[in-house]
């Protein structure tokens, strides 16, 4: 029986094609592979589930063991966030034309080029920059590449990073900077989380290529010293690189407003499901200066004229800089990453528009402030740990309650709640702390339920 995915396994067709090629057996087509390299055993794989029905039953049976953030009330963030995904975002990224396209040219894949150009155009407005790349793997990669770009632009080999950078991202950055770029961490103030500018001044030098911080930070607070940090970096001839959560930019100033030269961040909150962390996608944005554009490894799609007056064509901007054109002499490397999520983020921004992005940001601020207030009323809890403004995440301290975060989270789990991320290993200096995330998906009732459950857990 021919497999439904393999049309020419039908015996008559197969025989006809073999005849046409002039061989008796497919084995003859492998004649160039020496016997010593042939695998003659049988791969130890499960018996196939030959019908689609059996396959569905099998996979759904396994997946049924998962408990999702629709079934449980979720307050986890920390690099992947639960936001509402508009139906139109799913509708567009599930279209067969986009879902199954790949690397065609700007003729038969014109729509793919235009959708990604528009995505870049809208992200450019959000961060107030003129150049945005076709997305890379995630924020961590976007930050890593931004830093390598900075080292090439400045000709220097050291980068300074806020100590509050997300540890998961920091691990990616460290590996990506090896072996030639030195990564140095800048201390933060325990009361505010904000960067210690004295430490920054001490460490800045003529070796520094870039200063990198995140706003809002991994720990949720807003870093208000952007202007000072950028000015200090620029005084030493270094660049200022800022990582950002785009959902904040309807209400928060874009980093370009306080001196950022390169902006990077995560697209997942813009209409992309969390997918157990599989929905991440990273963006990089800069001014439209040749010395910046020349250092992007990513593809950049630009508008170009066609032979027909008034018709928009597209194509690769400055393709010669890429590894596709220059192999190891290109800028880093480019390959398949997350284009479909770039298209999706564009759809999201088009749906919300300027007012929607402001309302989104404002609603998140209000809910998150309400949650902090409710949690801070619980005896033994301190929320937020850092003094100052926050966006959607904040740190809660359980030390005074005499409970570990692990204990609290187990108790919350019993009540159908995913508590905040345990920070006690990542930031031991903070004590028994957890990172809580509140977004527009949370109602007052959800937040009250969390507060009541926590009260119960620490009593």
């Amino acid at each position, binding site marked *: 029986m021919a497999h439904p995915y393999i049309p020419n396994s039908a015996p008559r067709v197969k025989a006809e094609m073999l005849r046409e090629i002039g061989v008796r057996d497919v084995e003859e087509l492998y004649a160039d592979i020496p016997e010593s390299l042939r695998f003659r055993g049988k791969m130890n794989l499960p018996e196939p589930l030959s019908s689609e029905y059996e396959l569905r039953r099998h996979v759904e049976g*396994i997946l049924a063991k998962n408990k999702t953030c629709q079934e449980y009330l979720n307050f986890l963030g920390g690099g992947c966030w639960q936001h509402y995904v508009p139906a*139109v975002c799913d509708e567009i990224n599930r279209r067969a034309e986009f879902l199954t396209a790949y690397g065609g040219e700007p003729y038969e894949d014109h729509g*793919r080029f235009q959708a990604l150009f*528009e995505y870049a155009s809208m992200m*450019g407005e959000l961060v107030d920059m003129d*150049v945005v790349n076709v997305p890379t793997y995630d924020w961590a990669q976007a930050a890593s590449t931004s830093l390598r770009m900075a080292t090439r632009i400045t000709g220097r080999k050291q980068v300074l990073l806020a100590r509050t950078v997300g540890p998961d991202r920091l691990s990616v950055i460290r590996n990506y900077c090896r072996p030639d770029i030195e990564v140095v961490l800048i201390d933060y103030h325990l009361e505010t989380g904000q960067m210690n500018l004295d430490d920054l001044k001490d460490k800045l030098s003529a070796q520094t290529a870039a200063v990198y911080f995140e706003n809002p930070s991994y720990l949720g607070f807003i870093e208000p010293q952007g202007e000072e940090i950028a000015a200090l970096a620029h005084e030493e001839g270094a660049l200022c690189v800022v990582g950002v959560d785009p959902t904040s*930019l309807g209400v928060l100033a874009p980093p370009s407003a306080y001196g950022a030269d390169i902006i990077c961040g995560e697209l997942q909150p813009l209409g992309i499901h969390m997918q157990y962390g*599989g929905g991440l996608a990273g963006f990089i944005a800069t001014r439209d200066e040749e010395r910046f554009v020349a250092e992007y490894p990513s593809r950049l799609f630009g508008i170009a004229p066609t032979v027909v007056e008034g018709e928009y064509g597209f194509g690769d901007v400055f393709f010669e800089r890429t590894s596709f054109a220059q192999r190891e002499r290109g800028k880093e490397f480019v390959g398949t990453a997350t284009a479909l999520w770039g298209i999706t983020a564009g759809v999201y921004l088009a749906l919300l528009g300027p007012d*929607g992005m402001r309302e989104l940001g404002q609603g998140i601020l209000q809910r998150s402030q309400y949650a902090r207030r409710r949690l801070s009323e619980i005896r033994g809890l301190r929320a937020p740990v850092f003094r100052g403004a926050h966006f959607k995440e904040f740190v809660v301290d359980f030390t005074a309650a005499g409970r570990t975060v692990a204990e609290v989270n187990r108790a919350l789990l019993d009540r159908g709640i995913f508590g905040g991320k345990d920070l006690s290993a990542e930031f031991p200096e903070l004590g028994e702390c957890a990172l809580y995330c509140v977004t527009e998906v949370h109602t007052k009732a959800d937040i009250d339920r969390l507060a009541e459950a926590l009260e119960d857990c620490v009593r």
Partner: protein
Amino acid sequence: MSTKLRRFHQARWDEPIIYELSTEGERGLLVSQVEEEIEKAVGDGLSEIPESMRRERPPNLPELSQAQVLRHYLRLSQETLGADLNVDIGQGTCTMKYSPKINEQLATSPKVAELHPLQDEGTVQGILEILYKMDLFLREISGLDQFSFQPGGGAQALLAIASIIRAYHRDRGEAHRDEIITTVFSHPSDAAAAAVAGFKVITLYPDEDGYPDIEALKEAVSERTAGLMITNPEDTGIFNPRIAEFTRIVHEAGGLCSYDQANANGILGITRAKEAGFDLCFFNLHKTFSSPHGCGGPSTGALGVTKELAKYLPVPLVEFDGGKYRLNYDRPHSIGKVRSFYGVVPVVLRSYAWVMSLGAEGLREVAEIAVLNNNYLLKKVLEIPGASAPYAPGKHRVEQVRYSFEGLAEETGVGTEDVQRRMFDFGVHYWTSHHPWVVPEPFTLEPTESYSKAELDEYIAILRQVVKEAYTDPEKVKNAPYNSVVHKIDHAALDDPSQWAVTWRAYLKKVKGR
């Protein structure tokens, strides 16, 4: 029986840029409202933000109602030629196979889509089981000992591989090993990712028969050799029968050997990384293992290593104690992370379902039919005037062939890029080659297992038609396309810093003078 050519015309909506569709005051989506009690308790939420950190002017995003956003993007989707719609054998090296719809439904179910990566392990046993079992499957398929799904694509897998090679030599006190050897017919990322990881890259060129030059390899290895990063079969579709000698030579020089199996479609169950002596490999799950390409991702480069190198894999890895699946972060020798969290999990799920639908015999059938289709196509292409398949004359190829239209270009002045544009008029893709063009006027076809004989015949008929036009009316081919979405593009502006425009605002400023 002659194949009928379609009177094709792609959708041409002449669709404006989304900013040109904007009308002040329209909205595509309303955001969930904050309850009054919250507003009463905390106020407008904005006053907490220091003034210097507040956004002054709203972002200049377009304003459209919902149906208008939908319609715009649906039109753009129709102006995009997905594999589901065409005989997608023209994008050689990309393995444009069928991505089963059932796998799409499974991967987009809330049981995957609505999982947060930091959930308690007890609540994600299903998805951890999928990751664990897919690792076991790939061990069987490759012969290697453990896999990580963290890399978000082939190039990132190569970066991870280069990082592991670096860590391995450092731990052995041989940090002076700073050279990676690759071949020109291996993917550009083999060279580029190695360079990012700090290696000097040595590139081998083919010998007269199209095989990577073994004499050149012998000359290249030294006490500075860190490793070999190589594809086999290469983009030419020629299998290097001396590959075990290659890995032996590099091993004897003290280097590690990495097998770029981004595309392993012709050799599943036929030959493996282990028997050829490789220490590391990766598979692109969005190629061989059927996950859709998504306009260029999301994707996964599944990274496999031998036991000896397993301690270097990115953290965390999924483990199973017979009762429970867990994520193990306690791996002190790990290179750390190459991507956040655990990789592109739904891609792994689709690949798991694909393997489960085929089994061991089915995977082998995939490879055999992909090779059958390729050799059938090879025979048909060689019957076309002006076309050739450089190297290894008379030999069979594995899953793809890098052809040449050098003859056509010499005889008619029509080059491969002209042919490419004309092919679009018939509703199919046609890819030339990565640079440098070692094969003159190249084109690369890879029929995979997914297309019927009738479809292969259709593609050949289109190719024949375009070549016929090249001989009879070369200008027609050179000025193509006519029936595609747009007409011939003038690329000059894209390389001119004073004219290029990567965003609409840059376009308005630089080109429109606004």
